[in-house]
């Protein structure tokens, strides 16, 4: 089921502004790939170009090639809607649908595809997804309440549950744990471990330990200088990256005092 993703010579623009330049990498199927790097280097931008969410920003565009299982992602014959359906995404800031209940939030994606879910089936999906996101216990008694009434961390887990509920084949996560406490973070990391046997997962994180713990491969992005576009400095198996990186600046960044 899972997909491998080949990125070649990718330039990503916001209008005229080149945000990320010349990226080449192969994201392996059934593995976890982490993007790390300083703020503003284009990790989120890179991630969003992988499920064609980048293009929803007016003026934003992409040059180069991204191949998913042999299909060119930016080919005119590709339906971005189908892409996003199969390549799910969790954002940096939690964004539950404000008018929907917790229950409906989780099911939002499923409802799009199958208008009529059987009640039992739906209940099942909701419970499974919320459990996987480690939120079930906290909300099981108020599934009908609005999703916005949760704490920041709870909201983020709700968004993860929502993304998981449609069973995507690739899951992109943009600092999914930055608003989470250790317990939830740990639950999410467990979840990532679980999912990777079937899915391809790409995660942006500022937390070196997290990258080290969960990922198989790591890409390090950096800016040559402020104002310059971000670029991929090094892409290697995480083990190698954290013990014996090819690049000096990688080492400097990783060995920063902490993560």
């Amino acid at each position: 089921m899972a997909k491998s993703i080949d990125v070649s010579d990718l330039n990503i623009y916001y209008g005229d502004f080149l945000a990320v330049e010349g990226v080449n990498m192969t994201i392996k199927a059934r593995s976890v790939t982490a993007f790390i790097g300083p703020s503003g280097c284009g990790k989120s931008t890179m991630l969003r170009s992988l499920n064609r969410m980048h293009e929803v920003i007016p003026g934003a565009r992409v040059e180069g090639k991204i191949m998913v299982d042999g299909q060119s992602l930016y080919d005119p014959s590709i339906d971005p809607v189908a892409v996003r359906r199969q390549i799910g995404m969790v954002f940096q800031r939690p964004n539950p649908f404000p008018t929907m209940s917790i229950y409906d939030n989780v099911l939002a994606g499923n409802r799009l595809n199958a208008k009529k879910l059987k009640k039992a089936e739906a209940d099942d999906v909701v419970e499974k997804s919320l459990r996987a996101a480690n939120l079930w216990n906290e909300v099981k008694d108020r599934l009908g309440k609005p999703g916005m009434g949760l704490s920041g961390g709870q909201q983020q887990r709700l968004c993860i549950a929502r993304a998981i509920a449609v069973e995507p084949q690739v899951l992109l996560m943009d600092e999914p744990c930055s608003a989470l406490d250790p317990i939830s973070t740990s639950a999410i990391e467990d979840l990532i471990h679980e999912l990777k046997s079937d899915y391809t997962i790409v995660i942006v994180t500022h937390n070196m330990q997290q990258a080290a713990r969960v990922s198989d491969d790591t890409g390090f992005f950096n800016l040559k200088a402020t104002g310059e576009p971000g670029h991929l400095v090094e892409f290697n198996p995480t083990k190698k990256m954290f013990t014996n990186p090819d690049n000096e600046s990688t080492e400097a960044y990783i060995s920063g005092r902490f993560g």
Partner: protein
Amino acid sequence: MSVITSSPEKAPAKPPRSRGDRLFAGTAKGAGLAILAALAGVFIFLTIEGVPGLSQTEATYAPNHDFLSYVGPLIYGTILAAVLALLLAVPFAFGIALFISHYAPRKLAVPVAYVIDLLAAVPSVVFGLWGARSLATYLVPVHDWLYGHLSFLPFFAGPPSVTGRTIFTAGIVLAIMILPIITAISREVFAQTPRLDQEAALALGATRWEMVRLSVFPYAKSGMVSAVMLGLGRALGETMAVAMVLSASPVYTLNLISNTNPATVASNIASSFAEATPAKLHVLIATGLVLFAVTFAVNFAARWVVGRNERRMAR
């Protein structure tokens, strides 16, 4: 640390809000109260001047006989015209608002928004003229077609008007008149939908329409209701354009395309006001009072429906 307390030696009885805050809050509340006062003023005026209109001599209500039979067709006509206008305008208005905020290329959206706003500026007299002299003529074949194909429906029972000056045409003119108001307000709220909300839907694999349904509409709902209420208000209260377009008679009819159509309260006041005797003027103002009550009821009902929806949402 004395900085925190505004005046430590004074008795701590009254809340230490700054004068600026109190003044500002007072002004804001004052403005709200001013609106209440204005409305109360209108209501008192309508009551004092209108109540004598409920019981005048029979001749005053010609060609009807008493107040109820006089005001009935007017209220009916007002509601009929407003409903027609809303039915026509609301889908278009939301469609255009969406077109401007989410569908059109930027280069097209800006001028379109601008032109629609301009429409709000066309004087109602000009709407009336255009409606009565240009549009109505062009709609005569439409009337004929509706009569020819749909005359089994009571709405199109005919015979079709030869001048096109029917409530059907008036509804269209009203719809065009309320279109800019509904469009402008709803497009503002559509455009304000946070990107994060919209991306939430897109990232789940929603098509553009599904994104609109999932993120934009729920977010904009209150604004959309406001926009429609404003449009409804204008449709209920529009005076000149209806008076000029409509071939009016004091009757009840479902027939939308014949030359016999109920007038609206406002248009009837405008056209009867000129020759009105003092007694007739009381009657006219009394019809205004009834319209006021109807507006009140309509708003009440709308609010109740919306409120019930919200309550169900919150559960």
